């Protein structure tokens, strides 16, 4: 994991001291709320319905045990004993007191964490494949590039007041586990015909009110030109992105207005004008950063590892089921990537208690080379587990309610906080997710892979547009209604879902989802996932089933 240098450390300490003074002045009445709000937002502090909410960046979703323990400590000491992992690989605490935030930020700084650039019109936390450095289908570890982007984008003076927030995601794998195409800039590490590794650069993805899938700006960018090219894109956006209308200010709207070809011309012109030597990334610099992400030394598997595991699987069907869904292949022989589901049926998606976080920190040390990852699907990952250890790990997880065998299945639902916490919400999200996961859990295996995503308003923090089944809360004369979309997808074949028909009342959501799943189960062909069936048969059978009965 990347370690801060002296400069980073000093900067964070000074920043905490500065913020402490700002809070003091606010509480003393020397700063008005209008003066203070931008200052607290610059430190990730929002005001929600019941309290302040602190959003803490987890750079590219990577956590060490020490960091996770501090998050647990914050949950226990300053919050109500839990935190919420979000679709941006961040964590949010919902019950924060303003007067305690300077101490919280100081505790975070001690483990090289902060909340800077988790709000506002700047470049936000860069997200990445949570299986980075472990996946068997990746070209190289994308995290050094995320770290390079982090260093470049943190406190970048030119890009601190963009027209709107800006999100970047990076993946180097064949399977997109980072929702790259839904970001302002998406980066895929690719190998070209000559065998060199570079970036495919995509631009203009985003959800919210006007959802769009990113388009390819450049098929292949040599790696050492990454920062110059990003800078060129940001400059074009900074100059031409709209500042007159909040709803049209994201880069996706600029790309839509210009068209991808004109956008490309503008970026290439800027890029060309910067010259070959702009923002150089000499191999030595890249290598020094990459050294922080050196792969762990993994022991060669023992001769009887697989027979031992097979015996355990045969004895415990629940373990076998968990291994089937929550364990993914690792690039190193005898090892595996474990997804720790934060989606027990009937509970709020993405929440983890302090005790669970502490246990995971311990288990990561014992079983996963001290690494933990957060996923945009609101789960956690232990990326380097020896296969032989899977049964023991599963037992420990199970004791803390962390062994739900549903990764990628119907009850593994993404949900934003919705009206239970969020001041922008139109309707609740979590109770809908709870009812659905409780209802669907028993049928997870029969249904297979299915991504249900729920947002409490059009801002789409819960990614509903790209759910296989998406659910959006709307307010109809003070009543909670939910608009349902189908056929969306967030992976390498990203697609936006289509609205199936009029919104349904809260009490009808579970039944409606059941009906849609029923159509899929009836009509799917061997190996088809929900969006595959939808693409083949279209929306009509789903609409008929849903609205004909009514």
């Amino acid at each position: 994991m990347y370690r801060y240098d002296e400069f980073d450390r000093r900067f964070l300490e000074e920043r905490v001291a500065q913020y402490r003074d700002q809070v003091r002045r606010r509480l003393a009445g020397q700063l008005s709320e209008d003066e203070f709000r931008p200052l607290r937002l610059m430190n990730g502090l929002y005001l929600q319905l019941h309290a302040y909410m602190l959003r803490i960046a987890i750079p590219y979703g990577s956590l060490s045990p020490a960091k996770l323990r501090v998050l647990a400590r914050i949950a226990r000491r300053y919050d109500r004993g839990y935190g919420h992992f979000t679709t941006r690989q961040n964590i949010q605490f919902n019950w924060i007191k303003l007067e305690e935030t300077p101490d919280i930020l100081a505790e975070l700084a001690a483990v090289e964490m902060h909340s800077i650039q988790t709000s506002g019109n700047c470049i936000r936390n860069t997200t990445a494949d949570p299986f980075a450095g472990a996946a068997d289908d990746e070209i190289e570890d994308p995290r050094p590039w995320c770290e390079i982007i982090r260093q470049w984008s943190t406190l970048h003076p030119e890009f601190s007041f963009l027209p709107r927030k800006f999100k970047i995601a990076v993946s180097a794998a064949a399977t997109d586990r980072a929702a790259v195409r839904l970001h302002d800039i998406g980066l895929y590490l690719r190998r070209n015909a000559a065998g060199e590794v570079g970036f495919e650069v995509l631009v203009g993805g985003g959800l919210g009110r006007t959802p769009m899938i990113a388009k390819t700006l450049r098929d292949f960018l040599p790696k050492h030109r990454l920062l110059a090219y990003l800078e060129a894109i940001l400059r074009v956006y900074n100059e031409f992105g709209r500042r007159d209308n909040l709803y049209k200010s994201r880069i996706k709207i600029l790309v839509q207005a210009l068209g991808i070809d004109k956008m490309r011309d503008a970026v290439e012109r800027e890029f060309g004008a910067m010259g070959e030597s702009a923002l150089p990334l000499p191999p030595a610099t890249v290598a020094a950063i990459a050294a922080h992400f050196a792969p762990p030394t993994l022991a060669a598997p023992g001769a009887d590892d697989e027979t031992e595991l097979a015996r355990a699987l045969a004895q415990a069907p629940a373990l076998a089921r968990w291994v089937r869904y929550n364990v993914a292949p690792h690039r190193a022989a005898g090892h595996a990537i474990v997804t720790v589901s934060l989606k027990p049926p009937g509970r709020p998606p993405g929440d983890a208690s302090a005790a669970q976080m502490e246990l995971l920190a311990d288990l990561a040390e014992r079983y996963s080379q001290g690494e933990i990852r957060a996923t945009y699907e609101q789960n956690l990952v232990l990326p380097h587990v020896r296969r032989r250890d899977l049964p023991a790990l599963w037992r420990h997880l199970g004791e803390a309610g962390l062994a739900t065998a549903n990764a990628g299945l119907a009850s593994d639902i993404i949900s934003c906080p919705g009206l239970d916490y969020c001041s922008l919400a139109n309707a609740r999200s979590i109770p809908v997710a709870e009812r659905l996961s409780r209802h669907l859990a028993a049928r997870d295996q029969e249904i297979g892979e299915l991504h249900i995503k729920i947002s409490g308003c059009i801002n789409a923090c819960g990614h509903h547009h790209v759910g296989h089944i998406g659910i959006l809360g709307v307010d109809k004369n003070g009543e909670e209604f939910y608009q349902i979309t189908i056929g969306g997808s967030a992976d390498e074949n990203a697609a936006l879902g289509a609205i199936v028909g009029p919104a349904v009342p809260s009490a009808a959501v579970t039944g409606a989802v059941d009906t849609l799943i029923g159509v899929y189960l009836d009509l799917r062909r061997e190996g088809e996932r929900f969006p595959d069936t939808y693409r083949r048969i279209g929306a009509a059978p789903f609409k008929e089933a849903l609205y004909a009965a009514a």
Partner: protein
Amino acid sequence: MPHGPIAAASRPPMAAVATRRTVTGNRLRDGVPVYFAGAGRWSPAVAEARHVAEAEAGALLAEALAGPPPHPVIAPYLIEAVLRDGRLVPLGLREEIRAFGPTVRPAES
């Protein structure tokens, strides 16, 4: 399904019940929703809120806003509420949830 006070409050108000006005906001030091109880006092309990008829709402808000900085409450505002069985219940799901907390049980700690 909605439960507890939420279930009761998300029912549309009966026309016969006169709506009351009360002042709320989030407390500066910890963000907790509080209600103006009169005489410079703010309470986290909506039951302690002072409530008035619509005609007196402006005066109530002015009284709630008065005082030297720092005001203990961020951006106080008027809301509608009704008396149900003698108990003051804010109208609208958003204010209901602010008053009575999330409708979901958080993770065990």
